[in-house]
């Protein structure tokens, strides 16, 4: 493991939101992981489990309640306004909703060039050329430069968002469900584009998704999140072949399989019950009310994420 260089590392990150009447919403509750240079870490979990919040903490858009964010060996948990501008050159973001993530009042060219303007990169003339280059890179045409976002389809808009993120040559990109809002036919195009760009520029991704189906293709390792905590983290092949946490197993069984024979023989594992509210979570394992194997232990004490085999981390009392 040591011959990999860690690019991003988060330790015991907590992000709590204060709600009305003094209640506290634990959107992210004690999450730690690292991402190696050039690697993609998938982050999977149901909607509302805190993926976006975690991504934004890593990206320094949100300040964590507790914990540590390390980038290239440097602790950036706390930073000044000036530091922040430097950080934004290294880390970028791609958004879930291609309709609200682009400013409707700007042309494609202005959107893509904005980062270069803010960071004062290139001369005016070279910026236009750079925008052309980026458009080409993400599979759009030169002619698109003067068009407004509403003239594009969802997939094309997502390409513009990708070009915008690439414009200032970041090392790390948080892709927050970049394909969830797209047609299935377009999803794989965008995933392929992201993978090609990663190879070409040695990018590192945190790739967020709400189901496991596409994540496998792009991720080297996958972290499964449930109600603010990571419940399982391992190499993506391992996760698909040997899921250990009951929640991961249920997510996997929900993926449609193209092969009818395999599909017919498969055991579907349907979860009972609802996700508990992230406000006032009861003690013990957060998954216990939906877990088919829950026992007495699970109500007592919250399981911690531990390494059960090399590189395979699970937070479950029932796994040895």
């Amino acid at each position, binding site marked *: 493991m040591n011959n990999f260089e860690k690019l991003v590392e988060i330790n015991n990150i907590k992000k709590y939101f204060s709600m009305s009447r003094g209640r506290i919403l634990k959107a992210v509750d004690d999450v730690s992981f690292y991402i190696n240079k050039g690697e993609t870490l998938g982050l999977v979990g149901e909607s509302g489990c805190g993926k976006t919040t975690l991504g934004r903490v890593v990206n320094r858009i949100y300040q964590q309640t507790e914990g540590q964010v390390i980038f290239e060996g440097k602790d950036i948990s706390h930073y000044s306004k000036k530091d922040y*501008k430097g950080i934004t050159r290294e880390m970028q*973001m791609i958004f879930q909703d291609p309709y*609200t*993530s682009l*400013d*409707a009042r700007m042309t494609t060219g*202005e959107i893509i060039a904005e980062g270069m303007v803010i960071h004062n990169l290139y001369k005016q003339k070279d910026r236009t050329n750079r925008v052309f280059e980026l458009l080409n890179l993400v599979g759009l045409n030169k002619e698109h430069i*003067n068009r*407004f976002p*509403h003239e594009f389809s969802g997939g094309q808009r997502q390409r513009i968002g990708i070009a915008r993120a690439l414009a200032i040559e970041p090392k790390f990109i948080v892709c927050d469900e970049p394909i969830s809002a797209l047609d299935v036919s377009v999803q794989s195009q965008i995933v392929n584009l992201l993978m090609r760009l990663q190879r070409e520029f040695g990018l590192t991704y945190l790739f967020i998704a709400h189901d496991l189906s596409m994540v496998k293709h792009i991720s080297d390792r996958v972290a499964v999140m449930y109600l603010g905590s990571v419940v399982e983290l391992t190499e993506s092949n391992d996760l698909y072949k040997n899921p250990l946490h009951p929640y991961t197993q249920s997510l996997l069984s929900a993926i449609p399989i193209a092969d009818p024979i395999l599909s017919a023989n498969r055991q579907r594992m349907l979860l009972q019950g609802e996700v508990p509210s992230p406000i006032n979570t009861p003690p013990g394992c957060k998954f216990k009310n939906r877990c088919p194997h829950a026992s007495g232990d699970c109500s007592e004490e919250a399981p911690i994420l531990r390494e059960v085999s090399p590189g395979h981390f699970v937070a479950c009392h029932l796994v040895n």
Partner: protein
Amino acid sequence: MSDIMSDVLGLVDIPLEEFGVLGKDEYVSEVVNRPSVGYWKDAWRRLRKNKLAMIGLCIIIIYTIMAIIGPWMTSFSYRTNYLMETNIRPNAQHWFGTDVLGRDLWARVWVGARISLFIGLVAALVQTFLGILIGGVAGYFGGNLDLVIMRIVDILSGIPFLIFVILIMMVIGSGLFPIIITFAITGWLGMARLVRGQVLQLKEQDFMTAAKAMGASSSRLILKHLIPNMSGVIIVTLTMRIPQAIFTEAFLSYIGLGVKPPMTSWGQLANAGGQVMQVHPYQLLIPAFFISTMMLALQLFGDGLRDALDPKLRK
């Protein structure tokens, strides 16, 4: 097909992927040659194509120019009483006739235009400026600041307009300046509410987060993203505010709080004309014509501007 033929047609070196379904991309070829423009230039281009808006703009410009030069085009002063020549109908000498006191109405209409347009414009601009500033700060920074500002707005908007007017008139007297102060103090409340609502809605959107994640400063976020996205709503409200201020000034003149004669305004002229409407209808009709055409022009221009500022409506 011979090689020469295909050479001529340029078919030889076209790779396979260049071929596609025809007609699917008509949209593309339609806009390809549009010159490279930014948002504001593009909006202006769209505005120019809107005939009604351009008619509105022309009327606004003509009236403004006339307000400046109109009074000098006739040898009669707006304030001199020709007591031998009262209530004369429009003729070659007095183009709009004269009023009850024998003052030349052409001169009075354009001097009145100066006052009305000035009050309308300044009141609307001050209101908009204060509204954007205060509502923007409340919405953008939120928290306790927002709470305090919005409570003040609530309290102020509970006080009737006339009480403000009378209080201010008592302190600084009547005339042009107090009227503008009154409009400024009372008018920004609605604008501030509107702007705050817009800011609250816009600032949660991903494009704002994207700009922040790109390192954009607060001033850039506000000037480049927030304001352009609010501009449509603000401009329409602004163009409504101008006629509103003109009307309110007319109302204030009526109860004796407006500009003092012999100075006049469109509202005052209409008032005076209204009193002799049955005998000398032209004294009402002439100022009424200018007030209503100006309102119409502002409305048309404001609507056109709003549409032009919304790229989604681009043809």
